[in-house]
């Protein structure tokens, strides 16, 4: 028993070191650039792949292995510089969600590139020369390489501390972490500073990945697996805090090591639960600080202009097509139409909290998925008919909105995005691991509509009715006094509070409404597909929603509709026509973020304004 615990504890320490390497880079980059780098996991994965290539091609022995590992880290550093110079530099002033999305675009691109270069199979690396065997600690055999890793973490922490406290570069980086504009006004070239910081962070990620080579196989899932954990570590430690990241890495490393012994069923949830608890108790993490008030000029969003006649005509035409065309369509087209109607509502529900509410959500799929599961679980366990299932969907999602929203609307910016992500991951892990209830990865099958709606055309009209109705209700809410209050809270929270508005309550209600609407969409989606899977709540689906909203334009009312139409179409085409659709989707995301930050509807509106 004792031996078991000791081994678990030591393995936990070794994992903590690896986790810290990745998290340290992430937190340093965030501290200075305020960018949450989703692509950090991809850099880690690249480190592992590059190390594999270098180590297996270089002569065997110490030089070949350690030289290969270090070279891989440096090459990843250069890749990081490229990402910073070509992409991030252009979006430092963009809203957080754009930055998250842009780096997610990089994730997609790197995934397909790695697939092209290294192929789909797992790759096994050689063991580290000189650290192959095991040693005995208190009578327990323990691998030498793991022991080595245990020391790497603290050593890197020490070196980073020296770098940041004993060099002029480090002093400037710490100053820029507090107030980058002021550092610029003192004559420091921030661009160069940011690039060097990115180089350092990317090297650390690459090193973290390269050092995994003797421990586990290199594969294409490494990126998202590590980034989720690294986010947790960085957020628990406090964004931007190195010692915080170290502490949190230890905490998570140990929790995972012992969690397997104690709660093998909820290991995935555990980390996110801890993160949620920490964020609730200490909103800025264990050693984090509230972000220094932004000194940059804040631009207040203009009110929604009334739609131009042309635009209104286009809208009516769309509705007319949606109503009149389907009877002439085949089953496949009807399925696509149904999906589009559902996605319009899903996008509109996210837009509701992002646009008028000004809140960031990186986990909106949770409510969509909970709607789907709310319906499917009733079907599976009590054989409920569709009508009951469709009622249960918004109810389940709304309930989650009540609970999760209560926490999320207290935070803002990246912290809110991270917390919404954490809650979505909790919902996802529950669906994934609670096999008895949810069927786990196999999902729930046989979620079919009632007889009267089994015909594809009938189901389409049902979906259209509910989605269009709910979308219009959301629009009404935006234009009603409630919507004004919501926007007032977004634009000048202090002033809104001063005239007696309860900003928290308003945002909370908005969050719940959005969850309910997403739940309706999720329920309809479940019956449209006939099945429900954990992927309904996974990160990529949250990203889908964000992309639809951003593609349409956050600050336009028609945005989510335009966005859902365009995105569903683009996605469909890419997946159908290209094997490397991730690469293309990633490229589309980057183009969108770089060239259409106002989205399609926003761009169209601008163009119309210019002509007017």
């Amino acid at each position, binding site marked *: 028993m004792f031996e078991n615990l000791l081994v678990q504890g030591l393995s936990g320490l070794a994992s903590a070191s690896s986790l810290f390497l990745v998290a340290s880079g992430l937190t340093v980059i965030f501290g200075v650039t305020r960018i949450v780098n989703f692509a950090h996991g991809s850099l880690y994965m690249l480190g592992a792949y590059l190390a594999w290539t270098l180590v297996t091609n270089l002569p065997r022995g110490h030089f070949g292995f350690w030289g290969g590992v270090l070279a891989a880290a440096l090459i990843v550093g250069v890749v990081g510089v490229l990402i910073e110079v070509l992409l991030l530099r252009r979006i430092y002033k963009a809203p957080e969600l754009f930055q998250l999305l842009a780096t997610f675009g990089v994730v997609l691109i790197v995934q397909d590139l790695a697939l092209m270069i290294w192929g789909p199979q797992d790759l096994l690396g050689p063991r580290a020369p000189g650290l192959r065997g095991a040693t005995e600690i208190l009578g327990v055999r323990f691998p030498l390489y793991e022991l080595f890793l245990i020391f790497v973490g603290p050593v890197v922490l020490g070196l980073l501390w020296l770098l940041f406290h004993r060099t002029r570069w480090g*002093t*400037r980086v*710490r100053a820029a972490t*507090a*107030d980058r*504009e002021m550092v610029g*006004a*003192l*004559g420091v070239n921030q661009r160069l500073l940011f690039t060097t910081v990115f180089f350092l962070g990317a090297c650390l990620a690459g090193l973290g990945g390269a050092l995994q080579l003797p421990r586990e196989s290199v594969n294409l899932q490494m990126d998202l697996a590590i980034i989720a954990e690294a986010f947790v570590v960085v957020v628990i430690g406090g964004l931007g805090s190195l010692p915080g990241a170290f502490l949190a890495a230890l905490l998570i490393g140990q929790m995972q090591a012992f969690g397997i012994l104690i709660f093998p069923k909820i290991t995935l949830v555990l980390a996110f639960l801890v993160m949620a608890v920490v964020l609730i108790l200490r909103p800025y993490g264990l050693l984090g600080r509230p972000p220094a008030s932004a000194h940059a000029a804040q631009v207040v969003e203009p009110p929604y202009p009334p739609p131009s006649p042309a635009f209104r005509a286009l809208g009516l035409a769309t509705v007319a097509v949606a109503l009149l065309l389907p009877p002439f369509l085949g089953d496949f087209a009807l399925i696509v139409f149904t999906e589009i109607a559902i996605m319009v509502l899903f996008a509109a529900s996210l837009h509701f909290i992002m646009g008028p509410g000004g809140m960031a959500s990186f986990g909106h799929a949770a409510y969509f998925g909970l709607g789907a599961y709310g319906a499917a679980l009733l079907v599976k366990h009590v054989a409920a008919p569709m009508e009951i299932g469709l009622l249960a969907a918004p109810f389940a999602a709304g309930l989650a909105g009540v609970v999760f929203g209560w926490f999320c609307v207290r935070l803002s910016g990246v912290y809110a995005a991270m917390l919404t992500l954490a809650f979505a991951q909790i919902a996802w892990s529950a669906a994934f691991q609670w096999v008895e209830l949810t069927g786990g990865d196999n999902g729930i099958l046989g979620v079919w509509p009632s007889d009267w709606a089994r015909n594809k055309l009938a189901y389409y009209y049902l979906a259209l009715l509910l989605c269009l109705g709910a979308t219009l209700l959301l629009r009404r809410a935006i234009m009603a006094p409630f919507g004004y209050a919501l926007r007032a809270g977004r634009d000048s929270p202090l002033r809104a509070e001063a005239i007696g508005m309860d900003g928290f309550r308003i945002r909370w209600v908005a969050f719940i409404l959005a969850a309910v609407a997403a739940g309706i969409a999720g329920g309809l989606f479940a019956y449209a597909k006939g099945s429900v899977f954990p992927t309904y709540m996974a990160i990529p689906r949250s990203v889908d929603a964000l992309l639809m909203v951003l593609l349409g334009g956050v600050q336009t009312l028609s945005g989510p509709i335009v966005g859902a139409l365009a995105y569903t179409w683009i996605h469909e085409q890419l997946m159908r026509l290209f094997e490397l659709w991730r690469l293309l989707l990633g490229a589309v995301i980057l183009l969108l973020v770089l060239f259409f930050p106002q989205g399609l509807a926003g761009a169209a509106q601008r163009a119309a304004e210019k002509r007017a």
Partner: protein
Amino acid sequence: MLEVEGLHAHYGRAHILQGVTLSAAQGEVVALLGRNGAGKSTTMKAIMGLVRPTGGRVRFQGQDVTGREPFEIARQGLGYVPEERRIFTELTVMENLDVGRQPPRAGLAPWTPERVFALFPSLGAMRARPGGRMSGGEQQMLTIARTLMGNPRLILLDEPSEGLAPVIVERMAAAILELKREGITVLLSEQNLHFARLVSDRACVLEKGAIRWEGTLAALMEAEEVRAQYLSV
């Protein structure tokens, strides 16, 4: 040394600077006066490139620096001391000074920590103290000292007397006059007419984003209607 011509600036859609024109000659101390919200800080930020000018020109030492990046403007020898001080609270006094350090400039005796401590002796006694644990007056001195470490030829000083005790205000005035003796040009924004009189050669009166009156301080003291119209609250 500094010539600002018809400078415009916006925050979003709000048109804040509506053609500010002013100048400062080598070694001069010019006071930018005006009520709250007149646009004094915005003028300084626009000169420094922290707010992108939407029209007009800023020339420094004969070179056009309009719309350049703040760090480039700072490296030309333009120092900026913000109204909110913006000390790096986690960094010690010495580290704060280190961030501001720039290479020496021809014709100016380079500033060293020892020299700025001679100017502000109380800072010298707290070299290792984090900026966050200093009083408002000490922070104000540190923010000026930090900018001096960049060896500026001209300093934009945004309300240096704001919120300071009278004794400290006197000390601040002495320090500014000392800088003037060193040949440094100063453009200072003030609401405190008394302080402005202690140090400035000339005044520019700002109201609603444009200069409404210009002249020596003696002339301003004479011109009661100008003071009543633009300065009294």
